[in-house]
């Protein structure tokens, strides 16, 4: 179709040229001119104390260096629009927190500064991330962003429900499905599972965890398109649609918004669901707001009975899609050196732990020095210990290949969750859905080379 595919290489060449001048002169603190002002964009999570903690950390740097930082937030909702708008109108911040597929996308547009040398230089100070995580920050062998934490997905279950029915806690997707069937009590409005194939990360994230755990990917290790029409994908699609067909989920699961599964789990309408630590946060919060002794007891029980298991494994391993947040510096930044200094500060073990302490377990730090330092924090209880391991299981968008712009678009096009929806709602066959999905993905790769 395209006679000359959009080559990122030509754009990257420009970026590389610019960044050659921006390596640090010496390993420790980069020089920060007094009075420098930086704009920092951060993801606003549902745990307000965490957002404040990150801001406080940035302000500490500002104070220490006689500079100033203005922090702006984006949410899961407007993340895309905000960055797109900024890029198109040339009003990007100095430092932006980037989600899983953003570094590849923005680097491909030539928007990010090459941080390869910088990353190596601060390794002594902050440590490095495991290979599976740092993969999202790289294009080829150049690093474009520095990873900070991972917001993992975990498999939430009600332990008391399992114990009462004498069902074993699941470790694989197959076990989860069987457990759901065993625990299902539609007459009492209680269902075995709540997995929505919606357009939030609760949908496309879990679909990817499912696929990757079964060894299925739409791209090869080289990042090029690979056909989805395999037996393994058939099994995946069957699992994804059987949980609806078998009636082990509430009827409206497909239309849940991001909070749908949280609410249903907390209301004990479902026995299992995939979610980030926000459920634990909600239960801890509810306990803190308990009104009387009886209410208190109920909330304590809920807290004790809910378990966050590691995300289920498939025949090919345990892989968990997660939101990996990293820091990138935009090419329009007027003071990249100061920006690097701020990043080094934020990523340092001390600062990371300070933020972690207000995070209710949301963040799984990925740099090994920070992970070591926050070990005590995550030792609080079993759930937190699981949260802390998030980086272990992380698999990025586009696995087993690198996270490319094309992979990012596949996720953004909603094709991953639209496909099972077509089987469930429009009554397509599994084969039809896979064919359709495969065609759409191929189209994206064909028009977006690189």
């Amino acid at each position, binding site marked *: 179709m395209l006679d000359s595919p959009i080559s990122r290489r030509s754009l990257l060449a420009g970026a590389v040229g610019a960044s050659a001048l921006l390596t640090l002169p010496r390993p420790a603190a980069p020089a920060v001119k007094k009075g420098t002002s930086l704009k920092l964009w951060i993801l*606003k999570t549902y745990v307000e104390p965490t957002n404040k903690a990150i801001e406080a950390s940035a302000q500490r740097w500002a104070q220490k260096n006689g500079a100033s930082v203005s922090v702006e937030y984006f949410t899961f*909702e407007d993340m895309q629009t905000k960055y797109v708008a900024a890029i198109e109108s040339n009003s990007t911040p100095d430092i932006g927190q980037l989600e899983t597929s953003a570094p590849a996308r923005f680097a491909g547009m030539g928007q990010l500064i090459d941080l390869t040398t910088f990353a190596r230089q601060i390794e002594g100070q902050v440590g490095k991330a495991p290979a599976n995580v740092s993969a999202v920050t790289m294009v080829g062998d150049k690093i474009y962003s520095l990873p900070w934490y991972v917001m993992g997905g975990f498999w939430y279950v009600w332990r008391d429900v399992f114990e009462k029915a004498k069902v074993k806690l699941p470790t694989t997707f197959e076990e989860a499905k069987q457990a759901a069937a065993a625990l299902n009590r539609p007459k009492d409005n209680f269902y075995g599972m709540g997995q929505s194939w919606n357009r939030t990360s609760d949908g496309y994230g879990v679909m990817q965890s499912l696929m990757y755990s079964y060894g299925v990917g739409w791209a090869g290790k080289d990042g090029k398109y690979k056909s989805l029409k395999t037996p393994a994908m058939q099994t995946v699609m069957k699992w994804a649609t059987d949980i609806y067909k078998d009636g082990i989920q509430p009827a409206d699961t497909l239309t849940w918004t991001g909070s749908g599964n949280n609410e249903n789990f907390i209301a004990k309408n479902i026995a299992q669901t995939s979610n980030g630590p926000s459920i634990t946060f909600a239960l801890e919060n509810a306990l803190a707001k308990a009104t009387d002794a009886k209410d208190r007891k109920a909330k304590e029980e809920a807290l004790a009975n809910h378990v966050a298991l590691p995300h289920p494994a498939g025949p090919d391993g345990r892989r968990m899609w997660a939101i990996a947040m990293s820091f990138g510096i935009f090419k329009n930044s007027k003071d990249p050196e100061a920006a690097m200094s701020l990043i080094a500060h934020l990523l340092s073990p001390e600062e990371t732990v300070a933020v972690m302490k207000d995070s209710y377990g949301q963040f799984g730090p990925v740099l090994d020095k920070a992970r070591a330092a926050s070990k005590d924090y995550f030792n609080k209880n079993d759930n937190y210990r699981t949260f802390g391991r998030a980086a272990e299981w992380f698999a990025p968008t586009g696995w087993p290949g690198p996270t490319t712009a094309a992979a990012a678009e596949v996720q953004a096009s909603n094709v991953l969750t639209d496909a099972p929806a077509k089987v469930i709602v429009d009554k397509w066959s599994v084969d039809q859905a896979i064919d359709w999905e495969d065609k759409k993905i191929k189209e994206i790769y064909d028009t977006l080379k690189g």
Partner: protein
Amino acid sequence: MTIKTLTWLGLALFLLVILVPFWWIASMSFKTYEQIQFATSIYVPSPFTWENYTGLWTETRFPLWLRNSAVTGLVVTAITIVVSSLGGYAVARLRFPGRESVASLILILYLIPPALLFIPLYRVLAELGATNHLSSLFLSYPTFTVPFATWLLIGFFKALPDELEEAALIDGAGRITAFWRVLLPLAAPGLVASAIFAFTLSWNEFLYALVFIQDEQSITVPVGLNLLIYGDVFHWGQLMAASVITTIPVVALYVFIHRWMVEGLVAGGVKG
């Protein structure tokens, strides 16, 4: 069934249909998260709580959004009134070639959808450096408020008697003075109607505000409401409280002026 009974029945039915949704959100705005989550005291919240309203004020940037929406509404209304009264008068009362086409064109303009314009308009505004500030709204909102208001005012101006203006002209006043001193005051109901429409359209607009502005300082209420939904947690109660608060100014304005507004709607729309 007499006509009278049918009428009363119909009235009651319409009242229900129209008021129930309002009551539903208002009632939920007074419930706590737990009351909503666990479906206790469904129809009438008890205990009653103001925590959503106070939370809205202290925990979110709702006051800022209100301010932004208000400022935008006022500026856009001012621009709209000026442009549309001038234009409406010209089409209604001045003779010039192509007058009828201009009149039709104005209506057509109102029908060009924001859904079509939002992408290219974004680029134009970005090139002007207006994006990310309220000025992007000051420039883009008139694209739909002005055609509508002009069309309204054409109808209003046309309905005014010629004689007063003629009298002023004969007395030696120029067109502009005649417009300013004689017609404008007479068209007050139409102007008020247009102003209220412009303010309301601007207060409620969503797509442009969503796309053109990301800067936290410049968020307007509809976009802010959208943002109250972040991550996995919906602050239901606060969303409802915000909805209630947002609707009040428009309803209040409206209660005082609805008669004029309906007259304006009808004069401009129905009678052509």
